[in-house]
């Protein structure tokens, strides 16, 4: 059994130690808000926060989490910055199909936690998640709005 703290709750999961955190969240814990897109840390749909930093959970072995706190999209509105990001996302109407947006919201939250007033360059550096619907400009608008 591997201990794993997600959104403040500690679970003990019976999986192989090298299981990617993504599939523990989705299949073992039933938290499907975090998405599988590519499995090779390219697209960012699986982004979660590990101790407040954006992490691509599809390439993050569950046994590497250790005592770190994992935050997923399911709890993002409980975070003050995350809640602001969500409001901005809704207000700008950033999503289209929405599949990548859990990861985008998590990446944006991590960015604003680290850099409360990001420049366009900060946004470009931090927001590397793919969006097949091409919502990149709307996402940048939403981040600027959330930053205030």
């Amino acid at each position, binding site marked *: 059994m591997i201990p794993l703290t997600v959104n403040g709750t500690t679970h003990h999961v019976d999986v192989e130690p090298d299981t990617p955190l993504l599939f523990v969240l989705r299949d073992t814990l039933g938290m499907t808000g975090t998405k599988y897109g*590519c499995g090779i840390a390219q697209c960012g*749909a699986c982004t979660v926060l590990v101790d407040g930093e954006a992490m691509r959970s599809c390439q993050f072995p569950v046994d590497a989490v250790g005592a770190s706190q994992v935050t997923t999209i399911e709890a993002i509105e409980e975070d003050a910055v995350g809640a602001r990001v969500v409001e901005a996302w809704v207000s700008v109407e950033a*999503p289209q199909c929405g599949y990548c947006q859990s990861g985008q919201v998590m990446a944006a939250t991590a960015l604003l936690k680290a850099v409360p007033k990001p420049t366009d360059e900060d946004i470009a550096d931090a927001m590397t998640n793919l969006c097949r619907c091409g919502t990149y400009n*709307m996402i*940048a608008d939403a981040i600027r709005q959330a930053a205030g």
Partner: protein
Amino acid sequence: MKDFLTAPAAAPGSAVIAKAGPLSRRGFLGAAGGLALVAMLPVRPSRAETAAKLVPGTRVPAFLEIRPDGSVHVLSPFVEGGQGIATGMAQTIGEELDVNPARFTVDCAPPGPDYAVVGGMRMTGGSFSTRSSYPLMRRLGATAREMLMRAAATRLDVAQDTLTTEDGQVLHAASGRSLGYGELAEAAFALEPAADVPLRDPATFRWIGKPVARLDMRDKSTGRAVYAIDQKLDGMLYAAVRHAEYFGTKPLSIRNEAQVRAMPGVHSVHLLEAAVAVCADSWWRARKAVETVQAEWSEPEAAGLDTVAKDFSSEGMLQALRDYDGETHPAETEGDAAAAFTGADKVIEAEYVAPYLAHGQLEPPSAMARFNADGTLELWLPNQAPEMFQGSAAAAAGLEPAQVRIHSPMLGGFFGRHFIYGPGNPYPQAIALAKATGMPVKVIWSREEEFLNDAVRPLSMSRFRAAIGADGLPAALEVRTIGEGPIGRYFGAMLQTPVDSSAVEGIVEKPYAIPNRAMVFGKRPHPVNIAFWRSVGHSMNDFFYESFLDEIADAGGQDPMALRRALLARSARHLALLDAVEELSGGWKRGPFEVDGRTRARGLAMASPFGSETATIAEASVEDGAVKVHDVWVAFDPGSVVNPAIVKKQVESAVALGLSAALYEEVVYEAGRRRDQNYDTYTILTRDDMPRVHVTILESGAPMGGVGEPGLPGVLPAVGNALAAATGQRPRRLPMKNLSFS
């Protein structure tokens, strides 16, 4: 039409996935707005007689449920996949029903003849959803409102004409009484609907035509949106598959089955039609196990439609298109092109090429199947046409269509991905595995399996030749297109002509007054699984045509804007678009010009896809050998719109996908196999390459056109034309990443 409606769907797994009887294409297209795609998609009502009696889009209870709290639940003919159709339906119905769209929830309806509202059929595609259903859905809302008022009149014992409605309430002004729709719905929807209920005066619209807030934004911003891949059932097994290395080959045996079975969580190991599969208690365990499978596979055939040969390559396929010496058929003929070439001052010619493309939607395909105790089958799967999947799944399961229940969750992107493409869909695997295990099974394709097995936008090649007159205008245009489109592949039996509309659209029916034209098409099938892809034939053909039109302009010493204006002098609608895009971009300037010490230029292109009209300008430069697109301006005329905010975002989305295809995307076959298996090497547009996008909507009042696809085709040639002006090098082959600009 009747023959068409009763046409049987073919069994899954065959190359030609749907066969159908004859269809009066002319008759149908006349009704549906001149696009062929929709004509090609059969519905398969379980009882044709039922369908004949029922008028789709009219039976209120099939579409609307009004809950006690007054909220409205819509069962929509269409699936939401980012295009905003759920919100558009709520606006259209809500306007006439008199309920604020914000109180709507919208889900995709199960199969049923009520929902065949797209020219008598049902699908979410061809940019048809809004334009095909808008009049019907307005009428449905108005009919429901009248039923609610009639029920209220009975309940209040007053004359119906003393009642009014206001946002979900029926009001009796004289007595000050009111009844909520939620209180009335049960009695109201049991009434016979009235015929010819008057519709609201468009001048009084509160929601149609307004940028009403989308209904799905909060769920999609908080992870609560549920897609097919997120579905769960009690006692479900997860399945992962590995497909044949060569398309069309089959697994014969597994050498290490005992070893695979012994892996953690593994339930069972299976040989499927074209794949090996492992069922396990989590998808990750299933996937790890399936990747250790050592299988014997059949040898690939030398050639064929259902099979990719060991020596097949996309480059070889292109050469085959070039070498084609078979029959060609006129796709568009006007005047006497041959004579015009004979006397021409100047002749130019060029070959244009576009590659195979993957859909690359972010949600990997999945399918969840469960056989119920009563022998029925339930399927949860991404799909753009529930009745088609119902028919095909029934055939795969050996059931009647009525015994198959299709659930259509929202789509994590589609772009044409979720039609039936034979072995290009996972649901036959889910059905086979649920049958074999006696348990519910969810199959998910890994991203790698998806890139290797997605059905692809066909590789295409056209040869252009123009005669330039002494006036600098094109006197004649010849185009030779060789290849195959998805309509010809899947619905060829319905085409009344040997010309595949999906292979030549964007080359024919262009609006320019070129007096002599001779476009021909020759069919050369692809030995790979081909697909519809956002804007279908327009996705490459408008690039070809509009690029070559700039070559004509250059050869005739004309400015590209001036040339288009000259050739469109008699089309007010197109001139208005050119005016609009010119104004939006701050005035036409082709360049090249300098910005921050770098050379930039602008390119112009027009397209007429899916009943809409577009004019697009792109500003581009080459920086350190790489193409940089700075701004894209689009003037877009779909006739009229339901939600301008959604329309603008759909156009911006189409710009992104068009630019992605222009710059980066190609599915490359080498030695019978696809080269790229994930986004690391199959590059799609990232934030770094996203230009500023500026969209203006023109509502010309022309018949309503499509929205989801039409923003795309103009982008590629606008970028190509800008690069040609900036560098002097003309991009004639996509993607442009393979070109070296100096």
